[in-house]
């Protein structure tokens, strides 16, 4: 392996950027491909497929043997609102393999006693997201019901192209939210990506059941990445 390739790959991984290390198995020559880098021909198709599936593997192209080692960032779930649903969601998300962050500026809600061992921030979302920005491998669930807290985080998630954005609230509440987000400059096709009411339609009624529904939606979105980009919702393909 080229030492420069290793340094470049590790730097991208530290920055939570997706990358593939492409190795020619005949001579061991390698190079780092970032997500979005243009790669021509059949190799380009294999690269795109690997980024989408996250699966590493060997491919034969024009008689040459290549190995594509895919490095995708660990998926994160950022929850706005240290509410009852979040208390149930925190342990579930951890079991499902997500790095979890909960943000709520209301200190009475965001108390460590209510969220033992959780990466909890009793601050405004904007302040927290400045130091740990949202990205395409992060899901955002806005659960406070308070536009002052939820809206700025949703706008940031739309801009960062989070793989999943969901917001708590009825259709009526969401219609008003859509108006506010559009007034704040969000594009309608981006706003259409927000899942509201939040979570899979499983008839969830308790906070814990709603947490299951939210996590189900987040996983569905994670597993249909790329497909989602094509139709804007991912719902049909994910089903």
């Amino acid at each position, binding site marked *: 392996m080229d030492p420069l390739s290793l340094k470049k790959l*590790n730097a991208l991984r530290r920055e939570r950027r997706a990358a593939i290390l492409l190795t020619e198995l005949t001579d061991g020559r390698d190079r780092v491909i970032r997500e979005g880098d243009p790669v021509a021909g059949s190799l380009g198709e294999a690269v795109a497929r690997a980024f989408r599936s*996250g699966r590493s593997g060997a491919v034969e192209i024009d008689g040459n043997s290549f190995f594509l080692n895919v*490095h995708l960032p660990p998926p994160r779930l950022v929850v706005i609102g240290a509410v009852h649903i979040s208390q149930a969601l925190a342990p579930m998300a951890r079991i499902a393999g997500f790095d979890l962050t909960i943000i709520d500026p209301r200190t009475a809600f965001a108390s460590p006693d209510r969220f033992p061992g959780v990466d909890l921030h009793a601050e405004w979302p904007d302040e927290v997201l400045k130091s740990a920005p949202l990205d395409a491998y992060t899901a955002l669930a806005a659960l406070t019901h308070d536009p002052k807290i939820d809206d700025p985080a949703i706008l940031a998630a739309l801009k960062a192209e989070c793989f999943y954005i969901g917001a708590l609230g009825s259709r009526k509440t969401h219609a008003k939210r859509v108006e506010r987000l559009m007034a704040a400059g969000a594009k309608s096709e981006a706003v259409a990506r927000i899942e509201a009411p939040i979570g899979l339609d499983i008839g969830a009624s308790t906070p814990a059941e709603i947490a299951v529904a939210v996590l189900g939606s987040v996983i569905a979105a994670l597993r249909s990445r790329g497909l989602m980009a094509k139709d804007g919702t991912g719902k049909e393909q994910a089903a």
Partner: protein
Amino acid sequence: MSDTNEQFGKQTRQDDPLMIAEDWMKAGRDVAIATVVETWGSAPRPVGSHLVIDAEGNFEGSVSGGCVEGAVVAEAADVLAQGTPRMLEFGVADETAWEVGLSCGGRIKVFVERLG
């Protein structure tokens, strides 16, 4: 670790073999990197997993959960000395695989190369 973590986000923490390889390289150590490039059947570690080895035979990570690491470490010493990468294959169909302990019924192909 869950399947989620196998495909999304190989560890970027302290125990990450590629991060360790970079640290070793910066410390002036010779490093070989072994990578699982193909698996058949019930292979214990997924494709893309790494084992990193230095010239003294110290190693971090895994390519098989302990079954063939010893053999890979031995081959890595040659790869470090000669500089040319090689492809190793282990499986139950192979006598040496039985000897090195891959009795779990899987087959794996491991690419071993020198860093630099």
